[in-house]
Each structure stands twice: as structure tokens, then as C-alpha cells.
């Protein structure tokens, strides 16, 4: 496998918070960078108290150095009519700035975001072996105005839950 994932316990997330924040590059646009750092920092704080589970992805061929991205997953639920449905929630999907929008031939001809999302789906099925869950859900950053991001999630099978809100889901 040309890439591998690393999972962080709450204590590891605490110990390595600063190093993890420094390990990735944020957008060159200062306001976007500020937003991205705040969101990643929030995910790391959640990981420290086990409110989310944090994973990183690395290239094992060393073609690409360092941490390429993060994904943070947690359990939640959604009310559909009068029924509460358990879901796996993607709290954060983050790709280091220099790797965004690039398809890597040596990484299964995939983008980093695609690998992270596929990993989330695989984790969903691992969870489902033990606990009932129905949907994988996420909230695209900046919502519908972020057209490229929304198109990417739609290409991965996600749909909008309603026309009024930004939440997207995929039934698995």
C-alpha cells in the first residue's frame, strides 16, 4: 500500500497538538488559512477529549513528505421524521495545501481527499460490524458556495439532506 493512516488516541492528540498543527500547510490566502487553522485546532481539541477520532495520512513511498491530511470521525445521530438514526459524522477532512486538487498516480490515481473519504467509508463499515449506523454525514466547509468541494462530495455519493441546510449524507 503506497499510503498509510495513523490513528491518534486522546493523549497522543494532546501531546502532539502543536506538532500536528505545524506539520501541514494552510491556504496561502491569510483569511482562509486562519479559518483552516481554527477548524483543525478545534478538531484536535475534540480529539483530546475523545469527542472525535483523529487520523492522519502519509505517503509510504516518501514521494510526498510529512502528513498529507487529516480526517476526524465521531458518532452522532440525525432525526428523520420521528426516528433517531445513528450516523458516523465526518467532523473534519483536511488536506495540506500543497496536495489539494492533485491526482497522484502513485497513490491509486487518487486525490488525498478521496483517500481520506474512502478511509472514512471503510471505518464506517468497521463500526457497523459492532454498532448499528445508517449514514455517513458531513457539513461541507463554507457550504453550497464552495462548489468544487460540493461537486467532489457528490461524486463520492453524497447528497444534500435538505434544500435549506448544508448537511450532506451518503447511505451505506
Amino acid at each position: 500500500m503506497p499510503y498509510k493512516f495513523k490513528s491518534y488516541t486522546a493523549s497522543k492528540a494532546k501531546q502532539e497538538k502543536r506538532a500536528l498543527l505545524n506539520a501541514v500547510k494552510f491556504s496561502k490566502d491569510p483569511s482562509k488559512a486562519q479559518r483552516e487553522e481554527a477548524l483543525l485546532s478545534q478538531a484536535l481539541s475534540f480529539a483530546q477529549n475523545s469527542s472525535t477520532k483523529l487520523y492522519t495520512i502519509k505517503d509510504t513511498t516518501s514521494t510526498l513528505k510529512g502528513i498529507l491530511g487529516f480526517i476526524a470521525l465521531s458518532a452522532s445521530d440525525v432525526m428523520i421524521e420521528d426516528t433517531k438514526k445513528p450516523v458516523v459524522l465526518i467532523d473534519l477532512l483536511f488536506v495540506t495545501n500543497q496536495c489539494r486538487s492533485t491526482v497522484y498516480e502513485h497513490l491509486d490515481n487518487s486525490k488525498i481527499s478521496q483517500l481520506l473519504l474512502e478511509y472514512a467509508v471503510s471505518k464506517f463499515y468497521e463500526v457497523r460490524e459492532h454498532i448499528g449506523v445508517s449514514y455517513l454525514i458531513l457539513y461541507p466547509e463554507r457550504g453550497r458556495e464552495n462548489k468544487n468541494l460540493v461537486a467532489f462530495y457528490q461524486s463520492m455519493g453524497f447528497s444534500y439532506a435538505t434544500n435549506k441546510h448544508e448537511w450532506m449524507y451518503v447511505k451505506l
Partner: protein
Amino acid sequence: MPFIFETSVSLATRREIAKDSIKTFGKNSAKRFSIVKSTSITQNIPPKQIYVKIHLLKLNEGFAMAFKYENGKVIQVSMPHITGEDAKKMLNAKVPKELIKRIKAKKFITEAA
């Protein structure tokens, strides 16, 4: 996110909003929603419209696990209650079988940090 009140908003309306805010978000909601008085931006907006706007803001704020960045702060975002046609669509959604088959065929390696 601050609520912007027009000076002409009555005390009764403010109380109603405050009560509703506490009911929805708990006693600490005042910390989350600092209430400030009028600015020129809102001078021409009738109080009722402001009230509606506040309600819309509440719907976009949230309780649950995910979060978004807005006005320099990270805020959590709640899942909406899905009803009607949206609920039917979600319950009857098709599973993307090809995608799942492809992902299940991959052997992801995970190691502990």
C-alpha cells in the same frame, strides 16, 4: 454572533427573544449571543424582521458535533430535523454499491501514533 437590535425594538420583544434564546440554548446563551444596540445598518429594518432574522440565525447555529468557522470563531453546527419529502428521500436513498465495492477491496493500513 452578535444580534443587532434597532433602538425601536420594544423591551417586551427583547424579553421574548431572550426567553426563547435561553429555552433553546440554555442559561449560557447570553454569552454566545451578545446583544448590542442599534447600528445604522439596521435602522430601516422593522423590529419584526429582526426577530425573524434572529430565529434564522438560531437555526443555523447549533449543538451537535460538527463545526464551522464564522466571523472569526469556530462554532458547532447541528443536524437539521429531516421531515416530509426530504425524509422520504433520505430513507429511500440508494447505496452507492460500486463505490463501496471499490473501497471494500482496498486494504487500508492503520497504525497507532
